[in-house]
């Protein structure tokens, strides 16, 4: 029985690029557009910085707990800018992909379970890939750290870009951490419950969120507050041109995070009020 379940789960996590369904994406755009335009007053800037004719690694800061509205807004903007015909993949946590209903919809949207191999396969197929190196650590950071890039030293994305020979395009976003009041990552709690070993979870976040009030874990998601979301795409970084033929992973990591932090500081300076923007 356990073997059967494991087999089902691993088949759900397989990277099948062809699961992406452009018609499904096209039909989901109206709802995303309505929510993005009227609820989140979203603004996506400088999408023209994404090269139109080659694969790139889009590196974003992760926000909003398990309800990652900025990812949906970016996907809408990408699909309307380049057309749903252009392949585009995002990496997500295994738990999100394995979820029965939402997981199926995510796969149709081009989402792959987070792994180096899956990202390499998508890049090799010529598709831009969006990754969030900070993962669950960053997305559950406290709300007062909303304008801080925190990849927790995870540098795998640099090696991925080097292996695939693609430029890195940083994508910074602000507002996601105002969709609830995130209080703590609950890292010690997760460690005590051994969630890291059993579910690849380093955090057990605690927040105040609708409709739950006190929300521990955010496993069922939450109703996001209508925070204004602003996303900015930075110019591509060609690693070989910038760092020579054999780039140092630490140097690349430092440059990417520094550029993202500068851009995020500028976006934070534009905001006058929480949630309202």
């Amino acid at each position: 029985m356990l073997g059967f379940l494991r087999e089902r789960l691993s088949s759900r996590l397989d990277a099948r690029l062809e699961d992406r369904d452009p018609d499904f994406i096209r039909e989901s755009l109206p709802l995303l557009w309505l929510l993005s335009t009227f609820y989140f007053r979203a603004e996506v800037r400088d999408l023209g910085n994404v090269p139109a004719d080659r694969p790139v690694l889009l590196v974003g800061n992760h926000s909003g707990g398990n309800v990652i509205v900025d990812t949906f807004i970016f996907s809408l903007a990408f699909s309307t800018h380049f057309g749903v015909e252009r392949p585009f993949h995002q990496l997500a946590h295994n738990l999100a992909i394995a979820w029965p209903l939402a997981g199926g919809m995510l796969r149709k949207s081009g989402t792959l379970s987070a792994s180096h191999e899956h990202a390499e396969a998508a890049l090799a197929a010529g598709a831009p890939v969006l990754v969030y190196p900070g993962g669950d650590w960053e997305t559950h950071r406290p709300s007062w750290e909303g304008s801080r890039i925190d990849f927790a030293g995870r540098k795998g994305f640099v090696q991925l870009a080097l292996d695939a020979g693609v430029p890195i395009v940083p994508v910074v976003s602000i507002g996601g951490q105002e969709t609830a009041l995130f209080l703590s990552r609950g890292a010690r709690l997760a460690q005590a419950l051994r969630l890291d070993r059993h579910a690849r979870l380093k955090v057990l976040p605690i927040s105040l969120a609708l409709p739950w009030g006190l929300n521990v874990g955010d496993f069922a998601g939450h109703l996001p507050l209508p925070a204004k979301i602003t996303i900015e795409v930075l110019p591509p970084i060609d690693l070989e041109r910038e760092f020579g033929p054999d780039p140092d992973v630490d140097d690349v990591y430092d440059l990417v995070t520094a550029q993202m932090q500068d851009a995020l500081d500028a976006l934070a300076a534009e905001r006058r009020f929480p949630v309202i923007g």
Partner: protein
Amino acid sequence: MRINESTLVAAPAGTVWRYLADPENYLRFLSGITHWEVVGDQVNGLGARYRILVRVGAAEVGGLIEMVEWNEPFDIAWHSVTGVDHRGRFRIREQGAGRTRIEYRFAYGVVGGGIAGILAEVAAVLAVRGQMRRSLRQLKRQVEHEQRRLEVERLRAARAPARQ
């Protein structure tokens, strides 16, 4: 959803046509436009293709369009090939006394999406209508400016032989 807007310009149909037939001018008068690019070797005329993007709400919408009518100096019409389904038309009709009416027609549809699709179609009307009105105001200004320039040029040319 279909939206019609029109304007009356103080210029003959020929001047309006020449202005609209030049793809470089679209970036100058179309409101909300963020990208306009000729795709392929054909710059204008029947079958010419362009990649366009217009900001509507939180997204830049558009895609590849193709000119499907090129009836000088009366009609220019296009259909979308990829991106949001739409079709558009500039209808140019002379009204006498050197004036021309330009009608800008735009029809779009949201494929699928159920109730959200219908709501999005309706919600976009205000934004699209506003952009069409601003575009026509810009177009009127640009074409009338062009007409004045042509008249001055003609007067200068007429005076030149008299001075000699």
